[in-house]
């Protein structure tokens, strides 16, 4: 598949040649690199508490100051994305995969099943996501084993719509008709004729879902339903530092900047990816 490889090289080149793509992708890659390498490069132990250094201002020893337990904010911020990135990086492809396959299937099959399932999807989307997720977490607990499938399930639902809409643009094409006329079965048509043509839309959608999922994960932590202390996590750190915002803004600011820079980075990169792939994101429905 040399042609395919060269297309992706072209897309990557086009992605990095746009300012939004270059900035976004750099931010994302930097965050991922930091998440991987942080345990070895951070200056302090993330759970070392010190009664003598509670809410110290930034200094040479603690560049970003210390938190309410005297822990180093730089260390905790650097490591605070690890859980979020790992969980969402596993859940996003899962969400895109199941939502994408079901959406393509419905788009191709149409008929009653399509009508019924899409109304179910509508109903699901009309409920606030946080209620549905809290219900599951309260029932099953907040481990990674619960969070990953929960996020993947809920964030796959809007993907169904995107994949179905993208499929509708393809099923009417003569090459799908030609495949039907040859006698190919539905799985072969989905895999070979439709998937390559809706993959672009799904990839952009996946990037967007990733940033939404990060936000959701951090929100859960913030509410106390995600990562449990003393593991450092941005959502948790923001929640802890919230009460001291007036006297020690550094403790809250650092995780906020970290989380927003990653989300902004993903959004910028997704936007540039959409342009590089030729997918019109302005025309895509947003959920």
């Amino acid at each position, binding site marked *: 598949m040399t042609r395919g490889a060269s297309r992706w090289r072209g897309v990557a080149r086009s992605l990095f040649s746009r300012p939004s793509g270059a900035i976004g992708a750099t931010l994302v890659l930097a965050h991922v690199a930091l998440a991987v390498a942080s345990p070895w490069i951070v200056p302090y132990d993330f759970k070392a508490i010190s009664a003598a250094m509670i809410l110290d201002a930034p200094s040479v020893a603690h560049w970003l100051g210390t938190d309410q337990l005297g822990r180093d904010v730089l260390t905790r911020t650097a490591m605070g994305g690890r859980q979020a990135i790992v969980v969402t990086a596993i859940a996003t492809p899962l969400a895109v995969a199941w939502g994408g396959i079901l959406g393509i299937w419905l788009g191709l099959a149409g008929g009653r099943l399509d009508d019924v399932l899409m109304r179910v999807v509508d109903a699901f989307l009309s409920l606030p996501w946080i209620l549905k997720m809290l219900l599951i977490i309260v029932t099953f607990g907040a481990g990674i084993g619960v969070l990953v499938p929960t996020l993947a399930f809920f964030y796959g639902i809007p993907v169904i719509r995107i994949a179905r809409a993208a499929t509708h643009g393809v099923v009417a094409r003569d090459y799908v008709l030609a495949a*039907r006329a*040859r*006698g190919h079965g539905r799985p072969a048509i989905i895999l*070979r004729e439709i998937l*390559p*043509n809706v993959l672009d839309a799904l990839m952009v959608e996946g990037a967007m879902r990733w940033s939404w999922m990060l936000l959701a994960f951090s929100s859960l932590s913030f509410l106390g339903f995600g990562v449990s202390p003393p593991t450092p996590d941005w959502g948790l750190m923001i929640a802890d530092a919230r009460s001291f915002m007036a006297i020690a803004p550094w403790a809250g600011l650092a995780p906020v900047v970290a989380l927003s820079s990653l989300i902004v980075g993903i959004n910028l990169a997704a936007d540039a990816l959409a342009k590089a792939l030729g997918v019109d994101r302005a025309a895509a429905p947003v959920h």
Partner: protein
Amino acid sequence: MGEPPLIQVSALRVGFASRSGRVVEVLRGVDLEVRRGETVGIVGESGSGKSTLLLAAMGYLKRGLRTIEGSARFDGTDLLSLPRHELERIRGRRLALIPQNSGQSLTPNLRIEAQVAEVLRLHGTRPAGQNRERVRELLAQVRLPDPDAIARRYPHELSGGQQQRVAIAMALAGEPEALLLDEPTTGLDVTTQAHVLDLLSDLAAQLGTTMVYVSHDLGAIARVCARVAVMYGGEIVLDGDARRVLVEPAHPYARGLLASIPRLAGGALPAALEGRPPEPGGAGPGCAFADRCALAIDACRTTRPALAARPDGTLARCLRPDAVADLAPRAGARAAPDASTHDRGQALALSRLAVSYARQGLVDQLLGRPAGGPRTVDGIDLALREGEAVALVGESGSGKSTILKAIAGLVPRADGTIALGDGIALAPDVARRGPGELRAVQLVFQNPDESLNPRHDVATILAQPLGLYFGLSGEALRRRSVELLEQVRLGAHYLDRLPAQLSGGEKQRVAIARAFAAAPRVVLCDEVTSALDVSVQAAVLALLDALRRDSGTTFVFVSHDLAVVRAIADRVAVLYQGRICELGPVGAVYASPSHPYTEALMAAVLDPVPGARPRLLADDVQESAPPAQGCPFQRRCHRRVGDICATDAPPAREAGDGHVIRCHIPVEELRALQRAEAPGHGRR
């Protein structure tokens, strides 16, 4: 020559900057002068720059294009350097454009009256109080029946031909000195096209309006224009009187182009122009046509010829114009219809085939009744012998593509049977057909851009049928794929190309190779050449004919182009509203088209002969549904005999040699009528 030209394009070079920063020239130094009252046609194949030239003549360049050099003057003013507000005073008022697809250029939510009146408000020459009458006057001028009723309608309530007339009326609203037409009849049916062209040529004569007419269709140009310019590779290669350019062109490309057009009177396969036109910016230092030219000498590849005057008054861009006359007219290599197919076995039989798109209502469903209303396609009886090529001909909405889809099992049939030669009945739904039946029937679609998956390279495209029907993989798959590519005159190096990297003709060859990969018994071709340029079309037609001869495959061609059908088919079935009007050997049907509809259809065909004037027999109303009973053509027929046409289905009358005509008038009488009233009929 005293008066300065109305439109004067001089040394115009237009281009865009490519990704690598190189300037790609779309127009490479075009000179064109149009005097007041002249009608000039610009012909060329896709990518020749003809539309860019036309738009530049009204001071417009598409996004990304810019002027490198030269000017486009209108009455002395260079429009390309004119500020926008001054352009707006000229466009629409003194210079009007009629675009190709007028149905899409009309606003769908405004009545026709409002749209025409809007142009009058902007560019009208009379007081606003008279706008109402003026709208009706304009609609009458473009020969719309009952202008009052038309003015109150919305665009979707008009047929394609009527929409095109409204666009013409809007262009005429400002009483412009010059009309620019961009493929104004492309996409219209033959009979409708003949009517619109008739109108345009009358308008030119009555109003003395200057016209510049861009088209790929030499027949349409011949009908309207007195002067013709031929474009190739972004430059004008021949410019002169239509009688000279269309009969004895002094340029090898123009000659090749003329030869590649199938003629109604001909019957032979047209001669193909080998090679492909240069991509924009791809022409070398020499003549753009040198690579495809039979007369090319070494100088042609190094020296770019200038547009020079010839003794016959035309301007030609050729280094060896005197040699052009000696170019042997290469006749197509097609023998007469194979007589030997007569004793061959049957390949495909349609019997009483009917298709209905009408939806079953709830009451019908409960009572188990079929859907009401006349069927879209009905009573199709057709038997094809092995190796035979039968064409289904008709205008849009005649049901010809529906019949193909029913054979392929993509459209449910309401009635009738479809059987392969040895009596194997084909299931109505393709999903219920066995592997052997699937393999036996293959489809080639109209537009290869649509029928080839843009994400698959050629190897993957060919691997689909080869893997599905023969289980080929690895080296065997590759070997067979290369064999197929060679069969369609493409090489092994095409295997790893994507459709976007192929030209239109190459894509269609790949689509044909994919159909032949199944080693089918019957190949269904749906307008397979209508998306291609004429010179490419000729090559694809020759390829299909050769494949048929070599493989003995049976072909069903669907086409709206009567000349193409004449060149490629053995027998022809003329369809109107999903019913067969006339069926017979190509020679017999074309020599004496007897059914009134066939007669009207044939008379409307445009051959690229200067002064040819198609006869307008039936009106150009489009019907959306067949009549409930009687003859399908009853409402438009110019030979309607009376109530019997509306009540009884016409009988099938034999005219010998399998030639069948379905009409209430006996064949002899029909022919006598034709002879009596059409003295000019001898032109065919």
